[in-house]
């Protein structure tokens, strides 16, 4: 096997799961995540001679993935299709997950601005540090921290308006309802 191929297979294996999860968290379906992952790795393959190393490569792949999403949004037909798909997925989530705190949390997340939601999901789902998020979004770490803080306040306010509270350890609701388990799981 040529050294080029071997090295690429190595970086593919090292980054595949992280990149696929990054894509899946922002796609409606696993099939879409497959497509995005394939497109990002195809770009990486074409640029295999000048890829960064280590953690920087992971961020580079995430950044390319974000641009792939951006391109999707910029193509009208694909954009509309994606929206319909996302809407359907969101509806399905509501159907299968009536759990109250999670439903409210999900709604609160959706109500964030795109920028704030991106920061929160990168932090909470992708496990990126503030510095990594800043590098990925090409803004300052301070700006990321501000967005995180703003998002947290907005989410907490939304939950409070529904009678839910974050007490430092658990999410609580004042009046548990039958058939709707509460708390985190």
């Amino acid at each position: 096997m040529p050294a080029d191929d071997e090295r690429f297979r190595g970086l593919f294996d090292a980054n595949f799961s992280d990149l696929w999860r990054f894509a899946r968290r922002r796609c409606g379906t696993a099939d879409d995540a497959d497509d995005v992952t394939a497109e990002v790795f195809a770009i990486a393959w074409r640029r295999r001679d000048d890829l960064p190393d280590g953690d920087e490569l992971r961020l580079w792949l995430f950044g390319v993935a974000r641009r792939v999403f951006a391109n999707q949004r910029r193509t009208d037909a694909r954009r509309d299709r994606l929206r319909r798909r996302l809407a359907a997925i969101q509806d399905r989530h509501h159907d299968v997950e009536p759990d109250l705190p999670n439903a409210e949390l999900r709604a609160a997340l959706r109500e964030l601005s795109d920028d704030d939601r991106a920061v929160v999901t990168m932090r909470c789902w992708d496990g990126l540090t503030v510095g990594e998020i800043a590098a990925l979004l090409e803004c300052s770490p301070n700006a990321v921290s501000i967005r995180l803080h703003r998002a947290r306040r907005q989410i907490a306010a939304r939950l409070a308006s529904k009678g839910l509270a974050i007490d430092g350890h658990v999410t609580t609701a004042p009046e548990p309802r039958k058939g709707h388990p509460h708390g985190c799981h």
Partner: protein
Amino acid sequence: MDAIEDNLFELIGQLDPTRNDPPPAPGSVRRRSILEVAMSSTVTAPSAVDPEAGPVASARRQPRPWRRVAGFAAAVVAATGAVVFWPSGEERTAEAAVRSAAEALGDVTSFEGERTHVEPGVSNETMTLRVNGDDFEFVAETRFADGRVERFTAAIVDRVQYIGENRRTVRAPAPPGEGLDTPYGPASTALVAAVTDSDVTEGGNEPIAGVLTTRYDVALTARSIASLSSLPPEDLNWFDLEDPGEVDQFTVWIAGGHIRRVEIAHGDRATTVTTFFNHNGDITISPPPGPYEEAVDG
């Protein structure tokens, strides 16, 4: 970060879609096929935003409507430029007129344009563009069949850009190389490719916006379709020529050396009409009304 924030973010973490939808396992057919697709890739797919631009090393960016806007501007310029290089009294076909227009890029310094894109049962999009030199303003409104309305605006005035979406306007220095100083060539190439080697016939006179025009019907041929198909999508999308094989109506209206309108239809699927006004007119571009949010500065 305090304990409450920790807890909140932990709860959000539990909503992670991949908790119940893990990535394809090592050795699985899906994973192998993704690797094979990637390693068989040899061509850079054209796109509106270059996905190959590294996020870490590149300059910070705002969302980039510019390339799209520039495509529209290029299309307008391609169409309006005909007046400059169309010698008085010389008879030309629509094909020759558009080709001359494309070659005259850069000589039109101001213009206005309007584009409608209708997909029955899906959406109705209207865009307007006003340009004067490097300054321009662009407004797009899309009405979806389900009642949603989206409005997007973009402007560059004195090298300051204004991006408006969902009732917010973000102001920032215009990135160098963006805006309408983007080369016009590719979109004009699309227009030339569309009429070169096509069958063009005159269809009589029709008024458009109070101007008597001559209508030309363009029937794409296998050769012109092949020419169009070889171009990247962003060069084609403003005339909705991305699927040239599916175009079943292509009409051009010309008056006084100007292309006044281009209409492309794909059967019942979609119709795109681009209309041009006020070529080289005295057009003032002003910033959109405030208040503005300043772009996050990295």
